[in-house]
Structure formats: C-alpha cells, structure tokens
C-alpha cells in the first residue's frame, strides 16, 4: 500500500517537480544577464539592414534598474531621431516625442525604432516568469556544446508564444528562435560573444534575422536583419531622475 502511495505521489508530483526544475533553470539563465543589485547603463548601436532600402543606424543609450522593473532608452543618433525616448515603469511604456515635446503611453510601440528589435531586447531577461520548458535536448552549435530548451509562454503578455533557446554551460543564451502560436518561425537571434560586467554578462553583439521580411535578389531571399552592438557597459549607480519623464525632457533635442 505504501509502495502504491509512493508511486501515486511520484506520478502526480513529477510534473510539478519538473516545472519547478524548469523554472529554476530559466531563473539561472535570467540571472546571468540581470542586474538586481546595481543599475546598468550602456551605449547600443542598432544597425537595421533592409534589402529594399539599405542600412540605417541608430545609437541609443540604455539605462536599466532591474530591481524596480524600470528602463529608459534614449536615442542619441541620427540627428533626426535624437532625443526620442522610451520610459518603461512596470507594465507601462511612455514614449517621448521631442519635436512635439509630448509624452504618450502605449503598448503598441513595442518595436524599437522601426527595427526588428523589440524594446524587450534591451531589458532584463524574464524567461522564468514568461515561459515554461516544454522539452530539452543537447545540440552542437558551432564550437559550442549547448542545451536546447523549447519554451512555451505561460501568459499572453509576451511578444512570442513559443521560443527555442540554445544555452551554453555557463547559462548564457547563444541563440534563440521565436515562433508564432502556429509554429511559424518569426525571427532568429544569435549572440556569439558576451562581455562580463561585474558578476553578470552583456552581449558584445546580437544579430536578429527577421524570418518573414526581406526581398528576393537574384534568386536569393535576403532577410531583414538587425545588428546590435553593445559598448560602454557600466554598473555605476544612476540618479533616480534618470527613470522619469523629466530626464527625457532634459535630454530631448
């Protein structure tokens, strides 16, 4: 009877155990690129490559206070976009248009500056709170030995309902594929190299390939791509004023 009870307990509790283990794995992955003890700032260059219209470059200053779920993105170049800003506090995103000197609040502007990147690509990783692990396998990714996790969203507030990540032994995501609910591949992201800042990591560069958008040239389909390069990372404390509307007004052109 005891054996039967133990077996029943094992059968019933194993999904919960697996889910708890999965959450713990994703938490470790999140922790590697999350700065809960300090503020974080960096300069990021976003180069958008559209086959039909060429390359455009945007330089942006990124400020994060992960422990308060706040971030601020400030466009520094080109001149025509300089001073535009995104301030996210909790679940709400403020946009600042310096030409009208006006703030608007919206959820619809989650794409960053008309690129394939999303604002969430610049902010803290929240895999553990957004996804659960559906399956696991190992895979060789170039010179990296990786574990591949198929993730499914556990709520509908995420940008992609399904995603697949390639994770190296140091719990760093090297590659990800984002899928629609029907399983169509929407975009692929590659992070070949990281730079260590304090005890955490920041990508050196990120390549995002839009799997749906592009143009066929000479019989070859050229995808829209976004290259993100991160420089000048810092963990120095930031003034509280940085995460306010006032700061965007101050920095606006």
């Amino acid at each position, binding site marked *: 009877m005891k054996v039967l009870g133990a077996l029943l307990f094992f059968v019933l509790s194993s999904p919960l155990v697996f889910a708890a283990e999965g959450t713990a794995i994703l938490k470790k992955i999140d922790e590697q690129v999350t700065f809960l003890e300090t503020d974080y*700032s*960096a300069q990021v260059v976003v180069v*958008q490559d559209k086959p039909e219209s060429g390359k455009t470059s945007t330089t942006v200053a990124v400020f994060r206070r992960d422990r308060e779920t706040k971030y601020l993105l*400030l466009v*520094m170049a080109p*001149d*025509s976009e300089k001073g535009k800003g995104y301030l996210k506090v*909790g*679940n*709400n995103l*403020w946009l600042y248009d310096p030409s*009208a*000197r*006006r703030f*608007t*609040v*919206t*959820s*619809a*502007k989650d794409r960053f500056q*008309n690129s*394939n990147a999303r604002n969430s690509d610049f902010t803290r990783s929240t895999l553990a709170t957004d996804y659960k692990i559906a399956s696991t396998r190992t895979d060789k*990714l*170039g010179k*990296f030995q990786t574990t591949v996790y198929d993730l499914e969203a556990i709520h509908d507030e995420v940008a992609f309902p399904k995603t697949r990540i390639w994770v190296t032994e140091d719990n760093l995501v*090297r*590659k990800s594929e984002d899928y629609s609910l029907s399983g169509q591949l929407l975009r*692929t*992201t*590659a992070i*070949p*190299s*990281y*730079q*260590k800042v304090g005890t955490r990591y*920041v990508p*050196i560069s990120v*390549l995002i*390939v*839009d799997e*749906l*958008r592009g143009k*066929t040239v000479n019989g*070859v*389909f050229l995808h*829209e791509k976004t290259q993100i390069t991160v420089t*000048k*990372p*810092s963990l*120095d404390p930031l*003034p*509280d*004023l*940085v995460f*306010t*509307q*006032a*700061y965007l*007004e*101050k920095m606006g052109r």
Partner: protein
Amino acid sequence: MKYSALFALLFCLVCPAAVFAENSVDELFEDPAPDTVADPDSKLTQDSLTKENIRFFESVRAEGYFLTGWTREHPKPKHSPYNALNFSFGTDARLDKNIRAYASFFITYPSFRDGTSDNITNPYQDLLPTDPTLSFSNVDVKEMFLDYTLGDLVFIRVGREALTWGQGRIFNPANFVGALAKGIGLKATTTFLGLDVSLVAMKNDGYFKLETDSIVDKAGIDTLGWSAKAEGSWLFFTGGVSGFHHPNLGDKGEGYLKTSLAGFDLFGEALIERKLVDSKPAGAPIPTAVFGVYRELGPGSNPWLQAQVETMVSARGESSAARSIPEVARGWDSLSLGIGATSGLLNFLKTKPSVSWLHSFQDRSGQLIFGFSNTTFPHIDLTAGVVWVYGPEDGRYVTGNPDPLNRRLILSFRAIFAFDINS
C-alpha cells in the same frame, strides 16, 4: 511525374524564403570572438551624455501647392496656387550635466505661417493660409529656454517651449499648457511618491487677452496662468490628473486613465472647467469627456494599419473648439467623432495613404479627407488629398473651414523640398 514537377514549381514560387534562404546565423558560431571582460574605463556616463559643445542647426523648407475645388454657390471650380518658405535655425549648448541653453528661430513666407505643422493624416488642414498678406515674417522665436537640474532631483526649464499635455490625438481639450508655445514660463518637474509631477507657471499676455475683453493686462502675479500635473502607473494602468488656474480665465481640472487590452490602447479622459472673472466664479461648471482607441495592425516593423478613433462629448455646445470657457453649460448635446488611419501597405512604393474624418453629431457638419504622401525622391515629399467639407453653413466644420474661398470639395496637391543641417 508531371504533377510532381508542378508541385515543385509551385512550392518554389510560394516559398522562396524557404528554398533560397541566405546563409544561416549558425555560421557565426563556427569561430566566434571569445567572451571578454568589459573595459572598466570605458563607461557610459551622465557627463558624456549631457556635455556637448555648442551645436548649430538649420532647416530649410520650401513648399508649393495647388488647390482646386467647388463651393456650393459656384458650379465652376476655383483654382488657387500657393507657395511657402520656412527657414529655421538655432543653437543648443550643454555646458555640463546641470545646465543647458537652447534657442530656435524661424522666418517664414507668407508671414503668418509658423512652418511647424506637418499633419500627414490631414494634409489639407495645415496648408491653407487664412490671410492673403504676402510678406516675410520677422525673425520669430520658436523656442528659447534655459534648463537647470537641481541636485539630480528637480528639472527646471525657464523660457518658451512647445509643450503638449492631454491624451487625445484628435480631440485634446486638456492641453492646458498650449499657451506656453506663445509665451514664456517656468516649469519644474520631479518625482514624488512614484508619480511624475510637473508645475508650470505661464506668462502669456497675448494668449490670455484673446479670451475675453474683461481681462486687464497688468504686470502682476494675477496675470500668470498656473498648471500642474501628476501621473503614475499601477499594474496595467497609467493615470493622471492635471489642473489649470488663471484668475481671469477660469479653473480647469482633468483626470485620465489609460490601458491596453488585446493590443488596443484605450483611454478615457474627463475634464471640468469653470469661468472666473477677477478670481470669482462667473458661470456653471462645464464638463467634457473624451474616449479614444488606438490600434496598430500587422506584424514586423511596418504595420499595415495605424488607426485611431476618438469621441468627445461636451457641455460647451457650439463653443467647444474655442479656448474661452462658456458661462452656461448646454448639457451633453455636443458629441463629436474623429477617425484617423494611416496604412503601411504601400511602403514598398514609399507611399503612405491616410484617411481622416471629423464629424459633429450636434450640427451634422464634418470634414472627410483622403490623402497620399510619397517620398520616392530624396528631400521631396509629395502629397495629394481630397477634402470634403459638409454640413450647414453655421456648422462647426464649415465655419472652421480654413479655405478662405470656402470651397466644399477640394483637390489638394503639394510638394515640399526640405533638408536639415547640423554642425
């Protein structure tokens, strides 16, 4: 066999991305750069962001446009060619992270245009002069202000700036600080209990004089207009309150709540105002409410549709568009609807179609506009629009028709040549 070939051909035609995709990202992992340690001496600092040598900028814009259209009275169309020039220039200096000076000026032809408006949703409304004077303006100040940041706690701006409050993209009765664009003021912004808080004191004799003949302009503190705003975010909501006070104009108070649901941005805003004369109530409280929805449709970087719908209900009656506060509340008999939409479907042709419809249920007047904007050629923006102004002669959108010839059906063509220089 022949069906296999047909299917293969069909597959190639409908799935070019799958068949002819370029090299995969996996090649990046064959020989990646090694992980490194970030250089601690290379940091993004506040000083590096804010300290900037003095910057000069200028912008030149030349417009030519042609209107033709029909009035109610004349069967033959009337044609009108116009042109306009705008030259803007200015300077921006950030001495350190605490202080900044900014000024921008403009000269326009004709003299009455401010040269700043460029409404893609409504290519017609911003085009037409209401005064036939053909002369250049004097050099005018668009913005001129000094910024000071007090101990990383309070941001202070003194001077003239274009500033917009309120939530409506189409109807925006809560823009209490619009007067600042033509006057000067002092604005202090900080955070308090997690809220973004702003306080604005405005000095604008010209703007306030327009409101009523009873205002006596004096160099006293009672000529100042005061505005304050506090905004914050909680869970999935963003909300705020704001207010305005001027001893001879009146008091205004506003509150709004905004959220998103299934991809729709939703907001509701309520406004109440009361006329004052010599700081004493001179009329009944006048309520106004605005509700709006904004939605983008389509994945990727170019949504195929950006649409907004707003409705405004007000007890202001016929004076709902005026800045002055009426003394009598007319009840909720003034209902207006505004719809605006822009499509990205023709982006590959560098063409952006748009539609705008404003309608007053009160007097059954309105304005319907279809427009196209094309930017195929560098520095040139070509716009074509069809405008229909309808309703009774005393209808809001008929009396507000900016066409001096009062044409009801108008074809509008415009070309803008523009470039910016920064140094």
